[in-house]
């Protein structure tokens, strides 16, 4: 069954919210308390399911799994996502010293796979997973400024880095599918810096192959932050069944332009709505978004990006409750 078949012909819009860090507020665990224990991953996913009753289940977001396994130094706040402190891959020789991690034995990858298995079997909802894409990982390895320089000055090096990161992400993604992932969202936030031509050559070509390698039984989604209107035609052609779009995008105009079998996910503002407004205002904004999507069966409710760990839980409850409003009642 395709993603479009799963979400359409229902009396309400399904929801894929990006709010796994709310689980830290609910549980009191730090991020690494959860990352390092598959049992806690399950416990948090169950708490999230009870609290918010989304249409998918999910583990804690883990955008750092690749850079951490590859040994990059990280800034690790207790209640926020890790960030890369150094970007050490500057030459082909540096790259050759890196090994493609084995998802079944290296770093935290086996723990994540175990967590996915536990969640997939422990909660009877499709298991969703968001992972960093090969382009964004490549930028993390090299450092953004050096990376964009090399795009023009040393394109052969960039190709090698991208081939490497494609292997890293692909191996892990395929292992997560075997562990029970049904819905995989690949995030390529950094791709927004590219021209459409370069996006096609550097991102879309590899994503097509990667999505294809995951097999037909997995729902494939692409997320890119920011204003991606100029990339949209290429995003539609990169093998994803769904596009998750940022809050800066005007979804009501975008959805008119995409094929009916492409699912559009988005895009409640995680900052200015979810974090800043009152529950009643969040509810109103959610309903406003859903109403603007009326008539489009290829729409799925989601946030424009990951919500912050300090987002008020009552706001998340308000958004999720409102998202379950039947389409006829909107």
């Amino acid at each position, binding site marked *: 069954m395709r993603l479009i078949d799963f979400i359409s012909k229902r009396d309400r819009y399904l929801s894929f919210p990006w709010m796994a860090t709310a689980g830290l507020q609910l549980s009191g665990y730090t991020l690494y308390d959860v990352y390092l224990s598959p049992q806690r991953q399950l416990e948090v996913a169950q708490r999230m399911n009870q609290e918010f009753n989304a249409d998918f289940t999910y583990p804690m977001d883990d955008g750092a799994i690749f850079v951490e396994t590859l040994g990059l130094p990280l*800034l690790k706040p207790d209640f926020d996502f890790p960030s890369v402190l150094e970007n050490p891959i500057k030459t082909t020789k540096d790259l050759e010293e890196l090994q493609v991690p084995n998802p079944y034995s290296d770093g935290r990858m086996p723990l994540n796979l175990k967590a996915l298995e536990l969640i997939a079997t422990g909660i009877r909802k499709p298991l969703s997973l968001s992972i960093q894409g090969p382009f964004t990982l490549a930028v993390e390895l090299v450092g953004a400024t050096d990376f964009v320089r090399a795009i023009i000055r040393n394109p052969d090096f960039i190709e090698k880095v991208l081939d490497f990161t494609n292997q890293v992400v692909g191996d892990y993604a395929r292992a997560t599918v075997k562990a029970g992932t049904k819905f995989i969202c690949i995030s390529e936030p950094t791709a927004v810096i590219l021209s459409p031509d370069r996006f096609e050559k550097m991102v879309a070509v590899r994503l097509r192959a990667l999505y294809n390698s995951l097999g037909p039984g997995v729902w494939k989604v692409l997320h890119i932050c920011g204003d991606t209107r100029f990339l949209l035609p290429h995003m539609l052609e990169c093998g994803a069944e769904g596009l998750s779009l940022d809050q800066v995008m005007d979804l009501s105009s975008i959805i008119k332009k995409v094929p009916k079998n492409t699912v559009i996910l988005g895009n409640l503002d995680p900052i200015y709505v979810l974090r800043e407004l009152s529950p009643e205002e969040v509810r109103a904004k959610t309903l406003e978004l859903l109403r603007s999507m009326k008539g489009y069966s290829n729409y799925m409710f989601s946030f424009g*990006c990951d919500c912050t760990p300090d987002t008020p839980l009552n706001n998340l409850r308000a958004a999720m409750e409102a998202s379950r409003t039947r389409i006829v009642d909107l």
Partner: protein
Amino acid sequence: MNKEEILDTLARAVVEMNEETVEQMALLALQSGIGAEEAIEKGLSRGMEQVGKLYDANQYFIPEVVVCADTMYKGLEILRPATTKLQNSKGRIVIGVVEGDTHDIGKNIVVMMLESAGFEVYDLGRNVPPADFIKRVREVDADIVAMSSLMTTTMKGMKTVIEELYYHYQDHKPLVMVGGAPVSKPFAIQIGADGYASNAPGAVRIAQQLMQQRRKDGCD
């Protein structure tokens, strides 16, 4: 080549990312008696202005902007030591990525564009604690503090820096401009920033406007 041809070629070489030509033209400018200051302003900086326009028009993207700026720096390396007077700074700017955030490409590009526009830029790098901003502002008597954040989870750190600036300087604080992918104009206003830009050429325009405002307020 006459003076105009040299300056035009210098500007064009920046736009075309031709480091060799920039170096040749910078040397030729000096040999021909063109002042280093004039070669910087009417050659290199003019080239970067054109780059900004191409970026605004979606003809150049971030890779081109960075490599054009690198090309400009090649020319500056030759011309700066030859400046005969202290360059007339357009303003002193302390810039950094706020604490908790290590994404610095946007900030790096803004630094390059500000420098090319004649600002004196003090780059604190990334993951900068509020106290470091305050310390540097005091050391260099900054006119403007520029902050960026690429993460929704760290952008609130900008507000902390502004509050600290108010605490230390009250109404005489440097003006503040902010930017970064998740940052918006309403957010900038909400946290008390004086300016917001969504991209690097915009940041230069905002910095120029803020300096005008500062001069009008008699803070220069």
